[in-house]
């Protein structure tokens, strides 16, 4: 295999890694602020996919506007879900987990009832292939990679430099102290949940046209998200970034040289060993 092929693999690994990070960051944000594990997080990714099918594919809405709509509509829906369902289970991992399992079925079966059993195709948003040094690259994948990176950067800016983001960080550090400082815990929790699920929805829009949209597309993604947040460290956003890049590279790069079952074994073996020697993950808190 030549240098060019390796570059192509690295680029694809980066694309996959970026999108895994986008989804996993939402999950880790929810955990770090609400202290619940939302097993239905993958379904918000699926809802994002269907948003792109409805708005971009059927109603011919501009692609970037569709992304914004997905974030607002699905994020808004997530806020309602948080208020109605998860609010009473904050800091109760097991009940929240069970409830989110039920939500998985409700959301995926609802979409199946509404949209039918067939997988849906979404037109390519950025058609074309560019050749770099004899290698072919899909324009769509390049743009999806760049969009993924931009969104991760925007999330970082939001958490680091905005008032709401600072409030979120305060809650993760010490909830009681944050409350004493006047932080509206309820409001921030809802926003965090909405932002987290909104990010997953955007990832659904981005990947909907790269692959296809189906009511079952959330399940494989949630497994990868959990691997990332465990690898990176529960509640750690930098850890999520690192974990996502590692998983993206192993998943794609190793798959070129090894079969998928072997790659799966390696991935889980790596996590197993990591959890023995560093239970908090690569960059998790003590």
């Amino acid at each position, binding site marked *: 295999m030549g240098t060019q092929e390796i570059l192509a693999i690295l680029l694809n690994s980066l694309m*996959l890694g970026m999108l895994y990070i986008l989804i996993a960051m939402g999950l880790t944000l929810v955990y770090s602020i609400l202290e619940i594990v939302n097993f239905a997080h993958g379904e918000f990714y699926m809802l994002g996919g269907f948003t792109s099918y409805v708005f971009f594919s059927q109603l011919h809405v501009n692609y970037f506007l569709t992304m914004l709509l997905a974030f607002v509509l699905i994020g808004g829906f997530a806020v309602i879900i948080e208020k109605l369902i998860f609010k009473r289970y904050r800091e109760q991992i097991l009940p929240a987990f069970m409830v989110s399992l039920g939500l998985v079925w409700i959301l995926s079966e609802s979409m199946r009832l509404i949209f039918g059993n067939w997988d849906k195709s979404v037109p390519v948003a950025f058609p074309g*292939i560019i050749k770099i040094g004899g290698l*072919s690259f899909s324009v769509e994948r390049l743009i999806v990679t760049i969009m993924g990176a931009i969104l991760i950067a925007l999330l970082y800016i939001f958490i680091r430099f905005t008032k709401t983001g600072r409030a979120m960080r305060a809650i993760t550090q010490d909830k009681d102290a944050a409350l004493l400082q006047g932080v509206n815990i309820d409001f921030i929790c809802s926003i965090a949940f909405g932002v987290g699920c909104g990010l997953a929805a955007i990832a659904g829009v981005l990947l909907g046209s790269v692959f*296809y949209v189906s009511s079952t597309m959330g399940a494989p993604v949630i497994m990868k998200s959990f691997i990332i947040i465990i690898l990176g460290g529960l509640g750690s956003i930098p850890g999520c970034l690192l974990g996502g890049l590692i998983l993206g590279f192993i998943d794609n790069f190793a798959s070129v040289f090894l079969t998928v079952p072997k790659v799966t074994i390696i991935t889980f073996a790596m996590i197993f060993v990591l959890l023995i020697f560093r239970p908090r993950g690569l960059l998790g808190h003590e």
Partner: protein
Amino acid sequence: MKKVICIFTGLLIVAMFGGFGPGSAFGETLVIGGDAPLSGPAASWGIGQARGVQMAMDEINAKGGLNIKGKKYTLKLVSYDNKAQANEAASIANKLIYSEKVKYIMVAAVGATGRAIQTVTVRNNVFFSFSCWGKMLLGPKKPLNFRFGFSPYEMSDAYVQAVKKIYPNAKTIATISPNDTSGWDGAKGDIRAAKKLGIKCVAEEYYERDQTDFHATLTRILSKKPDILDLATSPMSTGGVILKQAYEMGYKGPKAWNACSMASVAIKIAGKEAAEDLFLCVNWNYLSPKFTLPALREAIKKYEDKYKEDWDYYGICAYAGAQIVFSNMQKIHSIDPAKVAKAMVANQPYDTFLGPVVFGNAEVYGVPHAMLHPLVLSRVHNGQLENMSFGLHPDLAKVVGDWKFPQ
């Protein structure tokens, strides 16, 4: 007066419940089971078959039901979604047989699930017809199993030969197929057929059914520079993604896909350019006057009017197969699965909308229980299917001689 009302009410209740139970004066219901993927990438196979069997049932029910020795049977289909998972398929089969008491399961797809289902149907003497691939699904120890529609053992030789005629310089082939029974069968069938024609297999790749990104796998395959890329048993949506990604990675050569039974789904996902020069043998242009019968065109129009979408090949075969099953039930005046199975082989050939049909290929399976009909090769050009040629399996040719499509 009160007494009269009570007696009348009692009689009415008895009539209501007695009227709709087994052995009632209003006739019985023969429940046919369906255990197939009705969602996910393999849904086109399950949904198409369920609708095909339902259409055949509707035809019978419209005429008053099945008439078996003067007793009328209304046909009813009960289908469950096994999501192409073997454990779900076995669980559903148990439910159908033990709770719903079905003696016929006539909707099933995906080899691994077929194997799971037959572990229950064989020991309960239940008639089991399917499109599932896998050599072990038919055999002397499974006398009530029938396959409706081609598997690689019926079509690979003719199919690969037809592709080689169009690309005589093709020397190498690479296959990519799901990592289960039907996936292995599909890939190995085409590899075997290719080898007979001097085409060497340079890559044989298998993937798990929930895989969505194939960049890494295709990097491995395309580095071997195959002349033909064979998607073997890939489901529609997954195959569409593979075609798209192969095109994005620079592959523009011919593609073969022996399980592509509903190309429109794959073409929508892949795009016209990526699907160009895709050769198929279980999906052709059913509305073209070339290599089709008027009755097939009528059946397709009826389906498309009702469901507003294309019909999967295995659904069409399930429709034809169900018509054969029900006609034999009426002919021999029995719904006993064993008797019906024997009659299906004894009463052939059948004149169907697909052309002449026989059940054959005993050379491979030990029993002649694989449906054979004229095989039509088609090619995707500019997003549309073009019918190119047709052939007859040797077992079919033995019976119908040099039968041809009326032109």
